[in-house]
């Protein structure tokens, strides 16, 4: 066994942009999936236009781009279970959680019970979560 314990940091991935207009949504998701192998304490945040990344029913055929939104439902399999959505960002856009994908994970500490990965948080709550982070990746 090597010297030194594994360092575990709080990693946050901040998503504030709509998908498809730019590549940031797709490429940030690619980081999240690779990062899963590193066993860090991961949170994803969707705020501002980032909430559109999780919209249900994306159909990209007519813009000729790959629809990568199904990948979000795999996040639970990668042990990503802290997905924060800013309430005010949804409300300002006339959206609710019903418009978004229902993301779940299986809790290994609770007999693999299926639970919600999404946490709808207010501005104040989100500010607290953000402040706790060691590493924040913005795209």
């Amino acid at each position, binding site marked *: 066994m090597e010297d030194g314990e594994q360092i575990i940091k709080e990693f946050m991935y901040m998503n504030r942009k709509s998908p498809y207009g730019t590549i940031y949504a797709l490429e940030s998701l690619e980081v999240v999936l690779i990062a899963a192998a590193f066993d860090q304490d991961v949170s994803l945040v969707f705020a501002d236009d980032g909430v559109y990344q999780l919209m249900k029913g994306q159909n990209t055929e007519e813009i000729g781009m790959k629809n990568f939104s199904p990948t979000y439902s795999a996040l639970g399999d990668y042990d990503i279970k802290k997905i924060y959505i800013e309430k005010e960002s949804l409300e300002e856009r006339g959206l609710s959680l019903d418009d978004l994908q229902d993301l779940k994970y299986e809790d290994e500490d609770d007999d693999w019970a299926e639970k919600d990965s999404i946490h709808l948080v207010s501005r104040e709550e989100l500010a607290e979560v953000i*402040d706790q982070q060691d590493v924040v990746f913005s795209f």
Partner: protein
Amino acid sequence: MAMLHTVNKSPFEKNSLDSCMRLAKASSAVLLIEDGVVGAMKGTKHSKNVADAMANISFYVLGPDLKARGLSEGNVVDGIKVVDYSGFVDLAAEYESVQAWL
């Protein structure tokens, strides 16, 4: 854990400064860089929001980016401290983590 927040876009171009100000916890710091230095200027429609946010958050602005844009240090909102790249590094070291609002 006090965080340093960097904002690199003008509040006239993007909502990054607004989002930053509403989600930066009290006693964190905001550093305006690149086009974001526009947010530091007095007499704009954003100046009051910035001044109000300063009640809880320390504001800094990157001097070299002001100069590049012909903006005068003397014209920044009262209380915003001007730093250079060396000061930027100091802030990044002093605060416990850094978040970029793009």
